[in-house]
């Protein structure tokens, strides 16, 4: 059974601004979910609705099939780790973590045991008496996680919880969060605008833009098969061109026709074509599908980032492990490296089309 479900959730503010348009989400227990989108996309609004700090204008929120839309935040079996951590400044580390248990009138020795266990889970043994203001950002973050987890929530909500940390610490915390989640088997809902973070940590990602759900799926599905230009641009680097379909499995862009892996689109229709930079390789001009002139190349440690211009004037971004062999090269890519996207196609239409022509193939 789904642990959290949002059905046709809309949030409109009194000034007429609509933060969320008809959002539908289903979350299974024990998984790590990310809500990914640029600022203002509505991801934090969704989190606040699930936590109970805000109420939807329309639609309902279900917890294990039970409607909790109007249940106050204090009575929902889930806890939040806030963006700024929101630790209580007048309480020490121990009392911060114990707050939720004290509210529930748990016996003092039981509280002590549980808090100690949490401190060791987040690797802060012996920090109980410290003032929270003496702690570093990473330590405060871990106190915030412990304060939420000590209540044994069924779902943990994390609001941009890593964005205040420096890059190295962020990587460590990503790893720790993931291992805590695996260890406890709690559903995590993680809000972030950092696509790398979402790709690295999640079982499933929900991509949002302008208060609308753009796409949901596993990190690899979203990276490999973005449904539209927004998702393609937001997640990873991309080469995007407009073109049109010739027939099933053949598309034209940049005045060339190419074999591709997409079908179910009527011939002549305007489409967007996406090629990921790492799916491109540089070969002898005669062997390439397109001939390009190298403009610049940067060595980034694990790969080269190469910019090249084709005869039609399009600038290609290419990631390779080897340097470009010559000033003028051929560009090679496999048919399934070409992702064809219809303009304005929704995720469900996309899924439907995909299943149609896949059946047709068989």
């Amino acid at each position, binding site marked *: 059974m789904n642990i959290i479900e949002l059905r046709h959730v809309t949030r409109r503010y009194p000034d007429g601004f609509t933060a969320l348009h008809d959002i539908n989400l289903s979350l299974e227990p024990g998984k790590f979910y990310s809500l990914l989108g640029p600022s203002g996309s509505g991801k934090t609004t969704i989190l606040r609705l699930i936590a109970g700090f805000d109420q939807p204008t329309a639609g309902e929120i279900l917890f294990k099939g039970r409607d909790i839309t109007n249940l106050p*935040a*204090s009575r929902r079996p889930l806890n939040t780790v*806030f963006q700024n951590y929101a630790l209580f400044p007048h309480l020490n580390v121990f009392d911060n973590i114990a707050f939720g248990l004290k509210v*529930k009138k748990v016996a003092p020795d039981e509280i002590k045991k549980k808090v100690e266990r949490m401190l060791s889970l987040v690797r802060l043994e012996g920090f109980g008496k410290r003032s929270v*203001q003496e702690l570093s950002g990473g330590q405060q973050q871990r106190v915030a996680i412990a*304060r939420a987890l000590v209540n044994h929530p069924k779902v943990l909500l994390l609001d941009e919880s890593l964005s205040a940390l420096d890059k190295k610490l962020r990587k460590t915390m990503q790893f720790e969060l993931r291992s805590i989640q695996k260890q406890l088997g709690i559903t995590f809902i993680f809000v972030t605008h950092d696509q790398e973070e979402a790709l690295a940590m999640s079982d499933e990602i929900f991509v949002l833009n302008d208060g609308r759900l753009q796409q949901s799926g596993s990190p690899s599905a979203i990276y490999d098969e973005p449904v539209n230009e927004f998702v393609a641009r937001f997640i990873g680097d991309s080469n995007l061109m407009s073109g049109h379909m010739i027939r099933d499995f053949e598309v034209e862009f940049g005045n060339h026709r190419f074999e591709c892996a997409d079908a179910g689109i009527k011939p002549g229709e305007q489409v967007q074509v996406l090629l990921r930079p790492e799916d491109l390789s540089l070969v002898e001009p005669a062997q390439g599908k397109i001939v390009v002139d190298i403009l610049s190349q940067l060595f980034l440690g694990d790969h080269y980032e190469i910019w090249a211009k084709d005869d039609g004037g399009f600038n290609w971004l290419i990631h390779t492990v080897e340097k470009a062999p010559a000033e003028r090269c051929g560009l090679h890519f496999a048919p399934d490296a070409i992702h064809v996207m219809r303009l304005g196609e929704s995720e469900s239409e996309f899924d439907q089309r995909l299943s149609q022509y896949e059946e047709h193939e068989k």
Partner: protein
Amino acid sequence: MRKLGKALYLVFAFILLYLPIVYLAYFSFSSGQDMVHFQHFSWVHYQALWADKNLIAIFLQTILLAILSSLIATAIGTCGAWGIFRLRGVQRKTLLVFNNVLMVAPDVIIGASFLICFTALGIGLSFWSVLLSHIAFSIPIVVLMVLPRLHDLDLTLIDAAQDLGAGKGLIFNQIILPEIMPGILSGLFMALTYSLDDFAVTFFVTGNGFTTLSVEIYSRARQGINLEINALSTVMLLVVLLLAGGYLFLTRQHDISLGARS
């Protein structure tokens, strides 16, 4: 050079401000009966003060009034500040303006209006009428002291407490109150000094049975200067100094317990 000038200016200003007080305290130790010639050092006026049971009773009444009125005003003012803080836009601005008008209105007008109000309502002039008016004029200052603290309050703390299962009462007692305590303490001490200080309002609303020090001193001073008053003023100055010191100590303790907040 500019620094020296500044320091000299400050010293000059403080001398000017404190000179009358020091002059007054100085003559409280004179054995004479006027403030023209210092005779020789003596405690005679302090002895007279100690023997003046009436004056001591008034002194204690004044303190009781100050403590009671400031405590009640702090409670009401804190709730009021919370109420204003929760409002938005025009409502909030209107209430703040009303609050500030009370702050800047001359005491004489406030006193007179209380007098009119009490007589119209048929409330006798006594300790209670003075207490009521002291509470009333202390509330705005408490509101002004508490509001900035509320503005500094991180609202996600309230979300966090709610998230951890706390109800409204618990959130106010355990999260909001400790956060705004420095503002409440400032308000309390300001209200205390306002009440101790007040002459004009009390003068209007006090009746036969009750009087405060400032009113009593005023009425005595009209019959000629008595150095017993000097002695009393010196004692009060010391009390106020102690109070101010206590306030400094308390707020610093609070800041230390909160750690350096920056």
